[in-house]
């Protein structure tokens, strides 16, 4: 069949609706292409099944007009392959065939063809079917675009809401996770976590001497600085109460460098708060600073509370130790539990560290070694 010449067709200007014509008979292929072109569509012609698959992969068309009896891979097989590939399944396929028997029609339906056109082709019928499929295809595309736009809008709203509670990058991972809030498991679990507890030194003096609306503004400014530092190093904020902030690292996602992240967060908290503290001293005459406790160890992670109010949080000795260290820390001092300190020692500025007395925690017989770093 390949000995026949291909008719010369005047090419139409490019249009948006692309039609792939697959026919080994050059006269039939060019007739179909010319008909599409006369209607302002953009046809591409190939003459066998494998070329059709390759053409669809290279530039997915909006419609395929597919002959059945092709050399090599048949039109049925081409149709079946297009319809079983998720990337091409939605492209409408019209089988154009001179086969009239019931079995051929059934094979076409089984292959997933969207429509049939019998040879000899009646051009009016061809165009009526193509126009119908074009409308359907374009409607489907519009609906898909609308669905995607709605999904993006929803995710953006969710992102905005969640970003008030967790770091922006953590928010991205939560929203991107299959099943939505997958990182926040419903069942409690144990995990190795680096805990950072921070609070404001001089807060009680502020509440006693400064007018209430100033106090709220000051607290917001303080928390703004601390949460920015926590988010910069991708910590997860678990609790904000009074003037204290609880941040976890290596939770709910693994962070192999969690000790370094926690240490850098502590340094950033202190350095970012320094200018704020200086301004408060000038405006209100109060001495403030950040006291921080750092501890690494096993914690229990879970959603804790009642059906009416629930917190995704961490609890356990490690959290208690960090809280105790925070209470002991003076302004701009970071108290680090000894084992954690060993893993961050190279990061700590020289000459800033000294060993503090060991701390005995309530209910514990063994004391905890503590290092103090003054920033």
């Amino acid at each position, binding site marked *: 069949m390949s000995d026949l010449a291909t008719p010369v067709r005047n090419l139409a200007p490019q249009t948006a609706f692309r039609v792939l014509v697959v026919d080994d008979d050059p006269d039939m292929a060019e*007739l179909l292409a010319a008909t599409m072109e006369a209607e302002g569509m953009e046809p591409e012609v190939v003459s066998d099944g494998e070329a059709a698959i390759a053409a669809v992969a290279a530039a997915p068309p909006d419609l395929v007009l597919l002959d059945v009896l092709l050399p090599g891979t048949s039109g049925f097989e081409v149709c079946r392959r297009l319809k079983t590939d998720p990337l091409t399944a939605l492209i409408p396929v019209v089988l154009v065939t001179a086969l009239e028997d019931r079995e051929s029609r059934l094979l076409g339906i089984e292959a997933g063809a969207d429509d049939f056109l019998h040879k000899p082709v009646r051009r009016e019928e061809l165009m009526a079917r193509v126009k119908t499929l074009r409308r359907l295809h374009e409607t489907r595309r519009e609906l898909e675009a609308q669905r995607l736009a709605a999904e993006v809008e929803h995710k953006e709203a969710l992102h905005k809401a969640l970003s008030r509670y967790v770091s922006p990058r953590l928010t991205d991972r939560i929203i991107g996770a299959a099943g939505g809030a997958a990182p926040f498991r419903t069942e409690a679990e144990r995990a190795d976590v680096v805990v950072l507890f921070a609070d404001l030194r001089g807060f009680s003096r502020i509440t006693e001497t400064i007018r209430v609306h100033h106090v709220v503004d000051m607290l917001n400014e303080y928390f703004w600085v601390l949460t920015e530092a926590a988010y910069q190093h991708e910590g997860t904020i678990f609790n904000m109460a009074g003037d204290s902030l609880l941040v976890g690292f290596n939770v709910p996602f693994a962070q192999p460098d969690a000790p370094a992240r926690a240490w850098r967060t502590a340094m950033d908290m202190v350095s970012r708060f320094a200018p704020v503290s200086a301004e408060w001293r000038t405006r209100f005459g109060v001495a403030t600073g950040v006291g921080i406790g750092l501890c690494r160890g096993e914690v229990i992670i879970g959603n804790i509370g009642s059906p009416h109010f629930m917190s995704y949080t961490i609890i356990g000795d490690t959290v208690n130790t960090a809280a105790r260290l925070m209470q002991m820390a003076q302004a701009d001092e970071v108290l680090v539990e000894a084992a954690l300190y060993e893993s961050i020692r190279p990061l700590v500025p020289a000459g800033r560290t000294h060993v503090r007395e060991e701390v005995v925690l309530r209910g514990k017989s063994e004391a905890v070694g503590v290092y103090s770093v003054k920033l």
Partner: protein
Amino acid sequence: MTQDVHTVKVSKDLEDLIPTFLANRKKELDTLRQALTAADFEQIRQIGHRMRGVGNSYGFDNVTSLGKLIEDGAKASDRAGLETHIAAYGEYLSNVRITYE
């Protein structure tokens, strides 16, 4: 012997395609004659099938109807019938006249 002139009306927008279409039909006729000499009924059937599909699509009803006769004749290995139909095809192609509208 006077031969009939077969007039075919073809859509104006297909005018560019018709010279190649007719040239392909004449090649097809030569192939049919050779295949009949070689008794290659499968090739004749395939060509008949193609004629059936393409003829009327361009407005050449006789190509489609002769294609069906040739396809059926090949399936039945009806050599005598095929000789008649192929001869009729040759006569048709020699005397077809086209008007564009």
